[in-house]
Every structure is written in structure tokens, then in C-alpha cells.
């Protein structure tokens, strides 16, 4: 239908108001505030240029958080995509009870990140946990909760996050994989391609746009990781699982260092926007080419 200019404005106005008032507007005002000493608890404030960013970047705590999140993203995102792809690949052809399987395998994603944190806190804990139960049954000695171990706390948080997100990735990838025409698989199979070659030569190119969109979404989730650590580890032990989002939250809402909180929050936004620009370029290339 031909939309007049007026039609367009009327149709997008509600979205502009909602996003302008509750997402983009606050984000941009927040950006302006990071160049000042602004805090809602003080009456006056002054312009300080990049001082807030300098302070945050020089804080060893933030350094630890930045290192952790880099490792977290580098490990969690590929694992989520590979495991999620694997599940979707297994379910791509009609299988008895596929509809039911698809819903059952989505269950971990239905749990809130905070709920998942509560759950794994107990499952990995000593008295009633699943880990010690299984080890004990196998006749192996108990372990202390891996969440308290400096070296394994972060990998454990990654695994818990993959457990929760990979099912969602599978849910998003399945329609794409299921819509690949049968002949393409058959051709590959007839030419003697191994299952790995079939995945790389048939599946991945066919769903590439979908795959990069899902990667964008889970990368954003990982960069802002907050809820998962809040209960599971609280950022500890020490700062082994501290993330920039936890750092930023603690600064703004717990220790009343509003400018540091706002500046570190914008560093998270900047990281996501940098990935986002890359993503938009990749997508636009595909559309014009």
C-alpha cells in the first residue's frame, strides 16, 4: 500500500515516543551526564570532560571486569551458537514428537537469569547439590563448590549461561534450518560430503543472515551480563566473575558513585554499538549484493 508521509508519521509515532522516552532518550541524556559530575543526589554539577572515563579505566576493579567480560564473550558466544546450532540441526528434519521436543528444549530459557542463578547456586552447592550427589555415587570425593574457586568460577558461570541461552539459539535457528530445501542436502550427500562439510557448505551459507543476527543478539546479552552473576557469585570470589554491568550497578546504586556508574555503563553501550555497526554493515552488504 502506498503510505503518505502523514500515514508514516502516525504509524511510527507511538514507537518513537516509547523508545525516545524510555530507551534512546535516557541513553543519550546519560551519555551527556557522563561528561559532568552530575548525580541525582547533589544539587550542582560541573563539566569535567573525560575525567569520569579516565577514572573508570584506571580502576583496577573495572580492569578485572573488562578482562572477565572479554573472556566471557569469547567463550560463551561461540559455545551458545555451536550448541544451539547443534540442537537445531538434530531437529531440522521431521522427527516423532518434534513439536514437543522443541518446547521441552526451550525450558531452560524460560527460567529467568536470576532463577537460573538461584537454581545453580543449589545444584553446585555441597549439601543437596547434583554435582556432589553424582560424584558420591561414582565413589569420588566431594568437591567444594566450583563457584568459590578463583580459577573455575568464571568457566562455571559461562557454562550456566550456555545452558540457558543455547536452547534459545536453537529455537531461533530451527526455522531457518528446517526451510533449507531437501535437494540441497541430497546433492551434498550424493557428492559424498561428510556431515561437517554438509554443515559448512549447505547449512551455514543458507542461514548466514539469520546466524549473524542471532550472534548479534547473544553478543549483546553476553556483554551486558549481570543477572547470571548477581546470585551465582556476586562477582566473586574476589573479582573473578565481576562484569562491567555489575561494576556499573554497584557504583550507581550501592556506593553512590553515580558518575563512575554512568560512565562504565556507557562503555558497555559503546562495545555493543561497535559490534552493532559491524553487524549493520554485514547485513546491508547482503541486501544490496
Amino acid at each position, binding site marked *: 500500500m502506498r503510505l503518505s508521509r502523514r500515514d508514516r508519521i502516525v504509524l511510527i509515532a507511538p514507537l518513537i515516543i516509547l523508545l525516545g522516552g524510555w530507551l534512546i532518550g535516557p541513553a543519550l541524556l546519560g551519555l551527556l551526564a557522563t561528561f559532568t559530575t552530575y548525580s541525582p543526589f547533589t544539587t550542582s554539577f560541573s563539566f569535567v570532560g573525560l575525567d569520569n572515563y579516565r577514572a573508570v579505566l584506571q580502576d583496577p576493579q573495572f580492569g578485572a571486569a573488562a578482562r572477565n567480560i572479554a573472556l566471557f564473550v569469547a567463550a560463551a558466544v561461540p559455545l551458545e551458537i555451536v550448541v544451539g546450532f547443534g540442537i537445531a540441526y538434530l531437529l531440522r528434519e521431521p522427527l516423532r514428537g518434534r513439536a514437543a521436543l522443541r518446547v521441552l*528444549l526451550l525450558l531452560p530459557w524460560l527460567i529467568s537469569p536470576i532463577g537460573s542463578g538461584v537454581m545453580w547456586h543449589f545444584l553446585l552447592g555441597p549439601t543437596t547439590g547434583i554435582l556432589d550427589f553424582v560424584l558420591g555415587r561414582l565413589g569420588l570425593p566431594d568437591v567444594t563448590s566450583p563457584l568459590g574457586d578463583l580459577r573455575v568460577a568464571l568457566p562455571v558461570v559461562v557454562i550456566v549461561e550456555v545452558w540457558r541461552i543455547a536452547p534459545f539459539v536453537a529455537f531461533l535457528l530451527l526455522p531457518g534450518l528446517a526451510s533449507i530445501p531437501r535437494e540441497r542436502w541430497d546433492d551434498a550427500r550424493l557428492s559424498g560430503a561428510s556431515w561437517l562439510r554438509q554443515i559448512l557448505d549447505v547449512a551455514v551459507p543458507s542461514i548466514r543472515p539469520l546466524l549473524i543476527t542471532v550472534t548479534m543478539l547473544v553478543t549483546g546479552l553476553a556483554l551486558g551480563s549481570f543477572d547470571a552473576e548477581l546470585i551465582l557469585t556476586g562477582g566473586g570470589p574476589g573479582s573473578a566473575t565481576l562484569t562491567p554491568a555489575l561494576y556499573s550497578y554497584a557504583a550507581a546504586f550501592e556506593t553512590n558513585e553515580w558518575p563512575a556508574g554512568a560512565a562504565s555503563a556507557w562503555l558497555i553501550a559503546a562495545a555493543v554499538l561497535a559490534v552493532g555497526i559491524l553487524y549493520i554493515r554485514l547485513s546491508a552488504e547482503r*541486501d544490496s549484493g
Partner: protein
Amino acid sequence: MKTRVSLVALALVVFLVPLAWTAIAAFGVVPDNSTRPPSWAGSFSLEHFAEVGVAEPTFWQELATSTASAACAALLTIAVAYPAAYVLARSRARAEAVLAPGFVVLASLPAMSYVIPLSDLTRRAHLIDTFAGIVLSEAAVTAPLAVYVLHGAFRQLSVEWEEAAVLDGAGLWHTLIRVILPLVAPSVVATGIVVFVIDWNLLLVPLVLTSGEIKTVPVAMSDFFTFERELNWPTAAAALVISLVPVAVLVGLFHRALQQFALQAAGRESSDE
């Protein structure tokens, strides 16, 4: 084929055993790791579900708040995203090629990157601790994703339907609601459900926009632990099970509609002009 079935079984074990462990604990069946080898303790009972209301007297109210706010936020998300997605789907190809992925980037933006100023603005607008404040902010979180998904559904539609309706003299709203909505209804329902699940599970947004007057379940769960009122495992498990039930029931009921949920409409290339 055999490998495929065993791999599916493996996936089911890995992803569902932790949930099953939690579910049986909620009914009072817990392991006892102090014995050698570990044994099962406790017997089947429903009392832990009642204990949730004792440990957190406002739990049932929080459950109602969560359900109502997520439902309202999902409805608002769809109401706002639907017309905007339509405009996006009918824009010039070059504008759409940048704007559509732009919405994915907005959907990927972590709430932490803007909740600090959002909490300040909400306080100044006297929306702190209000139901409306939660609903509006949650809808803003999920609207970008809904715009992206619905725009894909609109692109799948042949424009002939709309043109026929316009030739019949139908107006803009009539065309959008009476002609197009029935055609994309499965996608709209599926998107609404996915959005509901996301809104239901949000923590940071309701957390910073409230100070205890009004609480959603995830906020209450974070309280249990951060204020050292740690629950015992069966009670925590019961709370988890209760908080999972509404979304699980919804997803189960609408699993057919959810089959229609496509982040990107299939056969996208062929629907280009």
C-alpha cells in the same frame, strides 16, 4: 538416524535434568550428600509451596504483579511495534537495509547501558514504584525486537492483498487491522509470547525503577539472596517452579503458534523486489 536419536536424548538429559532436580526438590524429595554413597531424603509433600508464602509473605502478590506487568508490556510492545514494523517493511529498500538491523542492535543493547539515567528520569517523572513505570520501561526493552520480527512477517505478504483492499476503498486502519492482521496473526501471537517471556524474566529494569513498594518475582528472588535471607533449597525450588509455571503453560498452550516464530522470515531473498 541412531546417532541422531541418541544425541537428542543426550541434549534432553543435559538441558532438563537440572530442571527435574529442582522440580522434585520442590515436592520435598532432596538428596542427602552427607551419607556414603549419597542417598535420597525427604518424602513427597506439597508443603514447600505453602512455605514460599511464609518465607516471602508478598510472594503471591509479586506473582500477580509480574504476570500483569509482563502481559501489559507485551500488549503495549505489540501495539506499538505492529504499525511501525509495517512502515519499515514498506520503506525503500535502502532505508530498510540499515534500519531493520538497527532495531536488532537496539534489541541487543544491554539494559545496564541506560537504566542509570532511566531510573533518575523515572523518579523525576514520579513514575518510580508505579505499575505504569514498569510496563512502559519493559515495553521499551522488547519493542525493537518485535519491530524486527514483525517487519519480516510483513515482508512475506504479497502487497496485492493491500492493494485490493485499498481499491475497495478501505482506509489505512481498516487495511492494517481487518485485512493484514488476520494474515500475519500467527506471527503476531508468536512474537507476543516470546516478548512476554522476555518481559517476565527482566530483572534490572524493574529493579532500578522500584524501591520495594511494588515488586516482580525476579526482583524478589534477587532480594532473597542479597539480603542474606537465604531460603532453604526445597522452598527456593518451589518458588522457582511456581515462577516457571506461567511461562511454561503459555509456551505449551501456544507451541503451534511458536512454530511460526521466525526471527527472519524464510525465503527472504526471494521476497525482495
